[in-house]
């Protein structure tokens, strides 16, 4: 309070200081003033605590028990679940599957950047293309999975399209252990490309037009414009996309779960967690896995923020 007042008087223009002192601005009592912002925040905070922090706290507490998910009794077992988790390397092997999704995410960011750059410039039908690229993201993930189940089916859409151009690869897109993760990560590229694209496009359109004009006058090529103007301006957004992609690749779930339920080589870490929790009633161990996944993602995000600090975009 006090420093607010001092700042207030210090901010008065010098000319005003000479005149008769103005009546002090009417303040509400201190506690009410302090409470007001919390009042506005309360709804959001209640939701946040109810649906994020309490479940996470619950999960952490489950991870120290041998709870089976149904029984009213939970026995505290200390760090047993974590010990079991880290002494069973096969539980972590499934992270190899994430590499497919990570590679797909790199592709996804590059393609999204490419399309966003093209569509920032004047292009024919640009709004149509924007719509087409963003559309897949609007479809419910379950529907996407079902559509692609038919797409990858033997003699399904993909095979028929390939047959038109005379190719008969005769592959089982989901049945071949070498192909299944490529197919599945392809679906996730298709689905999330639109989101990245829109994020990039929004950031690019906030770049002042003068910069583009100046570059044009200087005779810069499209690639030079991208490298020296666009890319640096949207760096924070690219950074965000990278974090989201990494955490997304580690916690891939819905598309492979609905399409394959994790059979063959397509099992991901989260699918494995779900199976342990609900198929084998090892809620405690599964909670521990979820906690470890959370920790890994927090760690990667932290490291990434350290390596690529997010400088404030300072253009105005």
């Amino acid at each position, binding site marked *: 309070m006090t420093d607010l007042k001092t700042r207030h008087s210090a901010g008065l223009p010098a000319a005003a200081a000479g005149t008769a002192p103005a009546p002090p601005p009417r303040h509400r009592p201190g506690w009410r003033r302090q409470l007001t912002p919390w009042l506005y925040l309360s709804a959001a905070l209640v939701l946040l605590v109810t649906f994020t922090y309490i479940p996470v706290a619950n999960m952490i507490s489950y991870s120290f028990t041998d709870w089976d998910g149904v029984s009213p009794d939970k026995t505290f077992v200390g760090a047993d679940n974590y010990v079991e988790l880290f002494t069973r390397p096969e539980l972590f092997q499934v992270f190899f599957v994430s590499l497919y999704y990570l590679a797909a995410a790199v592709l996804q960011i590059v393609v999204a950047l490419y399309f966003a750059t093209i569509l920032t410039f004047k292009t024919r039908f640009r709004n149509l293309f924007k719509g087409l690229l963003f559309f897949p993201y609007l479809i419910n993930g379950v529907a996407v999975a079902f559509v692609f189940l038919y797409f990858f089916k033997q003699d399904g859409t993909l095979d028929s399209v390939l047959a038109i151009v005379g190719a008969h690869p005769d592959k089982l897109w989901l*049945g071949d*252990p070498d192909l299944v993760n490529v197919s599945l990560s392809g679906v996730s590229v298709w689905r999330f490309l639109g989101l990245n694209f829109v994020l990039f496009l929004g950031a690019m359109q906030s770049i002042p037009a003068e910069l583009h004009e100046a570059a044009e006058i200087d005779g810069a090529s499209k690639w030079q414009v991208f490298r020296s103007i666009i890319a640096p301006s949207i760096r924070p957004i690219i950074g965000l996309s990278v974090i989201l992609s990494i955490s997304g690749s580690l916690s891939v779930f819905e598309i492979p779960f609905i399409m394959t339920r994790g059979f063959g080589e397509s099992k991901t870490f989260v699918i494995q967690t779900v199976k342990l929790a609900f198929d084998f009633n090892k809620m405690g161990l599964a909670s521990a896995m979820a906690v470890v996944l959370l920790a890994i993602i927090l760690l990667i995000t932290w490291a990434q923020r350290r390596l690529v600090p997010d400088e404030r975009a300072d253009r105005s």
Partner: protein
Amino acid sequence: MKRRALAGVLLSAALVVAGCSGSGDAATDDSGALSPTDPAAVSGDITVLTNRTDLVTDGTMQKYADLFNKDYPNVKVKFEGITDYEGEVKIRMNTDKYGDVLLIPNSVVTADYPKFFASLGGATDLAGKYTAAGIGKGKVGDKIYGLAGFSFINGFVYNKDVWAAAGVTAWPKTPAEFLDALQAVKTKTGATPYYTNYKDGWPLSSWSSVIGSATCDAAANDKLPTANPWAAGSDLNTGDKLLYDIVKNKLSESDPTTTNWEDSKGLLATGKIATMWLGSWSLAQMQDAAKKAGKNPDSIGYMPFPAQVGGKFCSVVAPDYQSAVNIHSPHKAAARAWIDWILEKSDTAAVNQAISAIKGAPLPGALKPFTEAGVTFIDLSQADSAKVSKIDNQSEVGISKPEYRQHIIDVARGAGKGSLDDIFADLAKKWADAAAMAG
């Protein structure tokens, strides 16, 4: 700094709440849910949870409720059809509100039954009225907590016309004969001889119902905790090997990973698929699919597992979901009245082509060929089923889960490493380790 303090407060508050939710379960008073003697004195509103959403939406359940009301005029029955029955009810059982009558989810450990359900009576009293399959699974101590509405047998559902066209009319007596028959179907008719339903997974889990069928041993299930379930000559060895050979000899669909259960019913009815291993509950659905496709429902046949002991086939009678009464229900008598009525007076067992839990009830029509051929029906003992499921979960083998059979199919079709013997050895090792831990 301030922000951190706030986060700390929030987190500790959350932990306190989390800690509280663990305790404080209501003291369970189990006065039991015994059969009411005077229908007029029974009253109350009860909610019945069911997995048969189809019967709720098409009004069949309401019809049962109306008939029920003729006997019990003061009971109002409400139904709740749940699509993901297992997943949803299990989570609801963390509260008190899981209906008045419900089907016991498979994931509930038998020893925990008394914590969730009211007892339905003493085992010896009920044994006079119900079959062993009806009460076997719901027994804890000397009390019964769940009654299996009806039981099914397991076998191969097949399209008679396709098999006849392939020149096979007699049931194969050994796995080798069965494979020959499928081969004949493949070469002579062009139909897919066998359909795994690999993608949907759960149809594969019914292969665990071979337990008891191949060896004709009513105690087969109780032997699992102490023996190697995949030892040569055992039920699971015989069954899983047959599955492996079917896929290995390319007698199943070429792309198992995109199968579709709903479609498979029509495909079997129209003769594009010849055979599937399923419970006898599937007959009603297959015949229905045949009617829809304009085919004769009589073309749907059913045969036992191709193995004989003493010149006779054996079929295990396996209980379906068990009905139970919520221990927190305020209207236990009304809830029990509903269970009794649906078991004794309704036609649910006949409609489902199932074996009624009531002793002496007639067998369903679909099983007539079985009785005519002199198939031995065995009631699999469930005495150690709690122990079996404990070992199964601990070992993460999943005897009644689809994963390991999906792996067998993958290996058989060349999409996975290893051999069938490796798989069996690996399963046996996991099982033995878990059995040792479970004591």
